């Protein structure tokens, strides 16, 4: 049974449209014109318990609006949604007990208080039994190395430390679902890896369902097998990450290091992506030309010292999807 289910979810924001200047400001007091904008337009998906899903899209695509509806702080204009059996906006507080939220750009910790006191406060808010609280805190402290800054005020923590604190805080009450909004933004590689490891472990060991909203697709690649791609309020892809790579990653790159000097370099069926001295990057379509055939063609005409094939990274595929939009050839695959 799905833990999250949305059907034709839609959210329209209504804003006042007024003329510029002082006249417009006064005019709007008496006569108002409204402008409607659909932030989310018919989003449907379902998630099984224990899934990690990358919910991605460009800025203004409707990701945060969807998350806000799932957390119950926004009421959908139309459509239905259920989160762990509840309609979130009808039972916001009950729904909040089932979820944990981490925002990369906003902290739920108390700025002036030590981390430990913020955790104590969260224990009181979520009514976590003392035993469970101690066990969770000990485990998270161990996993995220929190002990050395547990008594430091949050305002004195580095971004990486604060994020680790935020993660522990969001998981203290054993939520069924965790919404992560840009959880690794601004973090260094070591901190990112620690956070990713933590998310993966919590998902594996506790069966926590995770919705990961991010622009850093490395997070998605590392953690989830499924992605939901949203653009202009609509789901343009819902399915396996590998399938996306298969279907959209049609072009690969052959990196060739030439052993001799070849001012004129050309290979039939491939285009030169870049060339720096003896290092040439060739782009080819794997549907029309196999890597083996291309390598053979190169080796027949040139002497080479090294060769490598680079698979398309998910970032370039998603960039292409953003630019080209939804293609009828790629139907939305129910997970």
């Amino acid at each position, binding site marked *: 049974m799905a833990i999250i289910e949305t059907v034709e979810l839609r959210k329209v924001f209504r804003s006042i449209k007024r003329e510029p200047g002082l006249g417009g400001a006064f005019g709007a007091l008496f006569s108002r014109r409204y402008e409607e904008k659909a932030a989310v337009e018919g989003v449907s998906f379902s998630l099984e318990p224990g899934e990690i899903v990358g919910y991605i899209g460009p800025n203004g695509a409707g990701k945060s609006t969807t998350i806000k509806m799932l*957390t119950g*702080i926004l009421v959908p204009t139309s459509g239905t949604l259920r989160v762990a059996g509840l309609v979130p906006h009808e039972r916001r507080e009950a729904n909040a007990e089932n979820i944990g939220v981490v925002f990369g750009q*906003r902290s*739920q910790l*108390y700025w002036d*208080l030590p981390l430990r006191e913020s955790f104590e*406060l969260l224990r*009181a*808010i979520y009514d976590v039994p003392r035993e469970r609280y101690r066990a969770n805190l000990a485990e998270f402290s161990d996993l995220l190395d929190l002990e050395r800054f547990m008594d430091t005020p949050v305002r004195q923590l580095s971004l990486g430390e604060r994020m680790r604190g935020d993660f522990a805080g969001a998981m203290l009450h054993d939520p069924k679902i965790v919404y992560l909004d840009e959880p690794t933004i601004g973090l260094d590689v070591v901190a990112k890896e620690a956070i990713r490891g933590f998310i993966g472990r919590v998902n594996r060991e506790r069966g926590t369902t995770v919705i990961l909203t991010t622009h850093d697709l490395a997070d998605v690649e590392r953690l989830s097998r499924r992605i939901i791609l949203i653009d202009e309020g609509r789901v343009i892809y819902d399915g396996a990450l590998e399938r996306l790579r298969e279907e959209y990653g049609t072009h690969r790159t052959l990196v060739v290091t030439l052993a001799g000097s070849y001012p004129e370099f050309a290979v039939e069926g491939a285009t030169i992506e870049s060339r720096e001295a003896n290092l040439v990057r060739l782009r080819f379509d794997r549907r029309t030309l196999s890597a083996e055939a291309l390598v053979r063609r190169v080796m027949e005409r040139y002497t080479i010292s090294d060769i490598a094939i680079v698979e398309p990274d998910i970032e370039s595929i998603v960039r292409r999807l953003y630019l080209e939009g939804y293609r009828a050839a790629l139907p939305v695959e129910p997970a």
Partner: protein
Amino acid sequence: MSARRFRFEPYVEFAKRAIAREATYRFDVFTGLASVVIRVYLLRMVWVALYAHNAAPRDLPLHAIITYSTIALLMGLVLDIDQTRALYERLHDGSIATDFMKPIKVPLYFFADGTGEVLFHAALVVPALCFSCTSTCRRLRCSGLSR
């Protein structure tokens, strides 16, 4: 649909954390303490000077006017909280969303936070109140200005 049981504990904790937050900066606390004592002292001096050089109203002796104005000043300081501003700021920067994502009643959260601030301010005026009481009593005993 079962109703959720209301719990006071989070709101008591919010109030306690608000007190702890107000007491974070030592410099603020001690200058705040000193400022209240000085304000009470100056207020008293103004009334003493006014009563010393002018005819006092018959039904309003010096100790009564000092008591009244001191209490008014201290009450103003104790209740000097601005939860509207706190709410506005949280709305403006969007951080109120995180409050609504918790299983709490948000208006009660702000009330509890404000209560914590009031309690902290109340503790802050105690030294000034003691100073005011002792100095007024001493003056009442030692001089005839109040009559």
